[in-house]
């Protein structure tokens, strides 16, 4: 009972903190359509539920359209543009139906793909226009919190030492560098250390990871070595794909370092 009481006061404390942070103009709640990504949907649902939790804490109303599947990136990146176009069109139709002000996704890579949609429709002006509209409404989670809602403290707490991996598409396509870091720095109890090669690729690269697994893992091992040297309990990133690559190797090596999605970290409230 004691424990539960403690928790509830903590949550109360946190929610008042968030209230304080909220900008006056945002008093009416913002409607957000969650694009959870197929990977998170099927393999890592906790990232999705964490995303919902964080967005709600930030004062958003979250909707989820169950017709959604994939952003079309696997086909686009492997060179199958027709197939990518078909899936992209479906994505656009589904999210056009929503009256949400923003589409938010826990993946820099999938968000970047949505931003690439217009490249697929050079010969279809109508779809080009529609894809541009969708692209401007679509945000990666940390970009949405920091740039749109102007929030960097979501009342999270996690005890331990952690580091951050910059997923390539978030970093280089969406320019996300300070946003995730400012969110992490506000996590109570967390000691944040920079990874010496934070901006280097983890070697995932979609189908590259299975087309050229040996090269992919050779690249990955440089990341792994740096993570081990950083002496952390967890490595955090904003893409489930990178985390599967990094986590899969850590787990194979029998390492104690955990991988954690940024959404999961931000949804934590001192479970340790």
């Amino acid at each position, binding site marked *: 009972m004691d424990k539960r009481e403690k928790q509830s006061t903590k949550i109360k404390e946190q929610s008042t903190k968030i209230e304080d942070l909220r900008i006056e103009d945002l008093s009416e709640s913002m409607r957000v359509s969650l694009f959870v990504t197929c990977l998170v949907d099927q393999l890592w649902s906790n990232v999705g539920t964490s995303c919902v939790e964080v967005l709600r804490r930030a004062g958003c109303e979250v909707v989820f359209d169950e017709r959604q599947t994939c952003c079309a990136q696997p086909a686009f*990146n*492997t*060179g199958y*543009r027709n197939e990518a176009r078909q899936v992209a069109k479906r994505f656009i139709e589904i999210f056009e139906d929503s009256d949400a002000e923003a589409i938010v996704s826990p993946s820099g890579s999938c968000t970047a793909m949505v931003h690439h949609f217009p490249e697929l429709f050079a010969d279809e002006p109508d779809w080009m226009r529609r894809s541009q509209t969708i692209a401007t409404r679509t945000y990666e989670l940390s970009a949405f919190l920091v740039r749109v809602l102007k929030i960097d403290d979501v009342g999270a707490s996690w005890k331990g030492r952690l580091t951050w991996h910059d997923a390539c598409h978030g970093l*280089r396509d969406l320019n996300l560098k300070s946003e995730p870091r400012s969110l992490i720095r506000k996590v109570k109890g967390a000691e944040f250390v920079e990874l010496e090669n934070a901006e280097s690729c983890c070697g995932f690269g979609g189908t590259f990871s299975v087309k050229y697994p040996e090269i992919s893992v050779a*690249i990955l091992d440089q990341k792994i070595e740096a993570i081990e040297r950083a002496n952390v309990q967890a490595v955090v990133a904003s893409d489930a794909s990178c985390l599967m690559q990094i986590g899969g190797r850590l787990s194979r090596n029998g390492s104690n370092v955990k991988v954690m999605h940024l959404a999961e970290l931000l949804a934590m409230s001192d479970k340790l």
Partner: protein
Amino acid sequence: MNPSSETFDQNALAALADKQLRGALRNATSLFGQRRLAAARSLDNWEDLRSQARRIKDEVLLRLDEYLLAFVSKAESRGAEIHWARDAAEANKIICALTVERGAKSIVKSKSMTTEETHLNKALEKAGMQVVETDLGEYIIQLADETPSHIIAPAIHKTKKQIAELFTAELGMPPTDDVGQLTSTARTTLRQFFANSDVGISGVNFGVAETGTIMIVENEGNIRLTTSLPRMHIAVMGIEKIVPRFEDLDVFLKLLPRSGTGQRLTTYQSLITGVKQSPTEEGPEQLHIVLLDNGRSRMLAHPVTRQSLACIRCGACLNACPVYQQIGGHAYGSVYPGPIGAVITPQLMGLKKTAQLPYASSLCGACREVCPVKIDIPRLLLHLRSEVTERSGDHVPKKTVERLAFKVWAQVMRRPKLYELSARVGRLMQRLVVKNKRIGKVGVPPLSGWTNYRDLRPIESQSFREQWRKGLIGNREQ
């Protein structure tokens, strides 16, 4: 000796198994990378310079014919002779004819990727010439009978120890690992060739349309010697090397050395405008400029890939590329390795034998980030990948299974019910391989590609959407 692009898979595996190679690559690429970053930061207008350089290159590429003709007429007015070469064979034929006519026996060459592209040395040797590479790195790989593995550092794959052993074996140098001793051995040997050669062959970094000047940058002084000591200088220049105005060189001189070696300026910048104008002046009597197309006008015609002609061959994308950092240049099996090589080679040689190269990238974008002329290399790789799949079977290796897989995938992804059904089937099938909530080694492709080296997360017993549907995410009341 030289692997081909067709066997990229095996080449890469061989490279990964070569510990000396990987050690040399790790040291060199990270050093180049750090120096580049420091040099770029020494200028507060780096980003403006990149944009400016790209604008200049775009301007040239849109009116290349006019600028080339202007360059030619200026260079000719200063006594240079111009030769147009449609392809590698034609360029080599022209150069061989010039050297034979001159009665040359010995030729000194300075580093030139363009002559690597045409395999000029082989052609000259066939014509009975002795050809000596005078750039230290090129000289090393010539002695080792290898090809360059980097655009600006041809022997980047070699360790000091390997070079010392090579010099001892080939030049009779007493065994040593003293770098000073190594370079002075090369210097002494090369000086004799400079003194006795009839023809010097160089590449070109920039050709100025306004003045007919060619500029070549270097650190060792061998280019200065190659282009000034022999009576005949032959400069081989890709047609894309033009800049419109003399003042444009200022922009590129700030970008090229910083991007390539991390220097603020190279030790030597040779600016050559025609031949000596009076007998009392120094320098060669003849200057021949060979303008090489070899697939470039075909590249120019394509609106998407045209931008790859803006490349100034600095090599920064190689150093920044996580794939190149692991496997080096030889694995690509092409003259131009690394990210820009994976873009240029298929365009120059066709996709039939190079179809694997555009896939040799994790699309991380580090190449685009460092490119001094802002070439969007990942975008070009994606474009080439789409060319590979669209022309599958037609002069390009077939991809029957992959094509079918993506056709099925697209159907599934457009139908949420089918998507959920496939996930459920996957959930059932994975029971065979899931242990301790993870999938370990599975011997069957395509899973083995992943699980040979890393554990895989299994499909969860309840997807996010199932939890949402059941109202488990606090969404019942909505």
